């Protein structure tokens, strides 16, 4: 059953039980699809020793960058940390205050997809022969080389969708969809912030992108 939270402070209520040491999958590609209000609530909540999974490592001084700045994130798993506006991360990394695991973007998505789909591990052709495959098991299958990749599971996923119904079915908007649907499947508890909640039955079932089974809490902002 999905909880729909819509009162003042709903974002804070939604993340109130995130414990220290949690792995948190955070949606978004740059600013598109980044659940800023949920990230801000997680920052206020103050859980420490977090592992964060996101495509990037924060932009500017808001959202994920502001969370990193608190020093509460022990490790970030991402594909593309270095950007023109990633100064918060750059400073933490260069002073040894954050751990970084760089993962090719497709492997990042597929490792979460595997977690959500109950796959124990998978062989990917991405990264073979590169420094990012060092120390990993390799196998040649039908003449092509692959490297073994393990799932990334989250304790929590914080994602941004556009519209939810009261069951928790989600519809996204344009390229803000990005990692949302995959992360929703890969976490024990998935929290989606949305700008619109409609009555159950108001979404065309043919158009639902994330079915309600993957969504635990909806926060209306």
């Amino acid at each position, binding site marked *: 059953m999905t909880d729909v939270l819509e009162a003042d402070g709903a974002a804070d209520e939604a993340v109130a039980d995130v414990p220290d040491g949690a792995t948190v999958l955070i949606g978004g590609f740059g600013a*598109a*699809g980044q659940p800023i209000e949920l990230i801000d609530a997680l920052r206020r909540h103050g859980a420490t020793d977090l592992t964060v999974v996101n495509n990037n490592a924060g932009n500017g001084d808001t959202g994920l960058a502001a969370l990193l700045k608190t020093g509460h994130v022990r490790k970030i798993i991402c*594909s593309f940390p270095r950007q023109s506006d990633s100064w918060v991360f750059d400073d933490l990394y260069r002073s040894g205050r954050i751990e970084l695991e760089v993962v090719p973007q497709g492997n990042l998505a597929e490792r979460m997809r595997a977690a959500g789909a109950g796959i124990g591990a998978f062989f990917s052709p*991405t990264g073979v022969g590169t420094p990012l495959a060092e120390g990993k098991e390799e196998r040649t299958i039908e003449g092509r080389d692959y490297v073994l990749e393990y799932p990334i599971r989250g304790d929590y996923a914080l994602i941004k969708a556009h519209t939810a119904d009261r069951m928790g079915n989600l519809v996204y908007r344009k390229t*803000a969809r990005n990692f949302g649907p995959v992360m929703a499947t890969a976490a024990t508890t998935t929290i989606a912030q949305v700008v619109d909640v409609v009555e159950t039955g108001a979404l065309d079932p043919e158009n639902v992108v994330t079915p309600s089974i993957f969504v635990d809490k909806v926060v209306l902002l």
Partner: protein
Amino acid sequence: MSDALSKDQIAKLIADDIPQGAFVNLGIGQPTLVADHLDLERGVVLHTENGMLGMGRAAVGDEIDEDLINAGKIPVVETPGASYFHHADSFAMMRGGHLDVCVLGAFQVSVRGDLANWHTGAPDAIPAVGGAMDLAIGAKDVLVMMTLFAKDGSSKLVEDCTYPLTGLACVSRVYTDHGVFKITDEGVRLREAYGATMDELRERTGLDLLD
């Protein structure tokens, strides 16, 4: 002898070589210039790794929508027939061999088509790979757009890459200011030279280029 090519002229050469109706991913940076030279009549469909087929030009004015961006995080517009999808599907299109062409920048390309374009290997550099490794091994045709020589004059087309690799034996053609090079089983074949003779290019690259 013709002059060396400008970035725009290289982009035009690449655009002219992209087959009709191809699904194409243009890497961030210089390869995005290729889009300016694509003839829309030829039905090329642009893919962006962040979950869209049918990407259009950069958005201007009221068209700008923070939910509609390209891989370089620049606002863009939709074209008719566009579609949106999540990241696992987007990279399945690459890894699964569905994408016809990708165009990438490079620090170095080896004579066997090894690509180095994600990391300088410098001790203080922050590594960032994005979708480069998935594109390199995924697209059917991987085209590289780069200057032939680095700022220090050394050739970026090399016997063996010295920078950390992005993918092994994945590049099919290299488009540069001084020539278009095809990576073949026999070796590197020069298709056309610009602003230099074949012998000068052999001399400056130190490679046994084939005619």
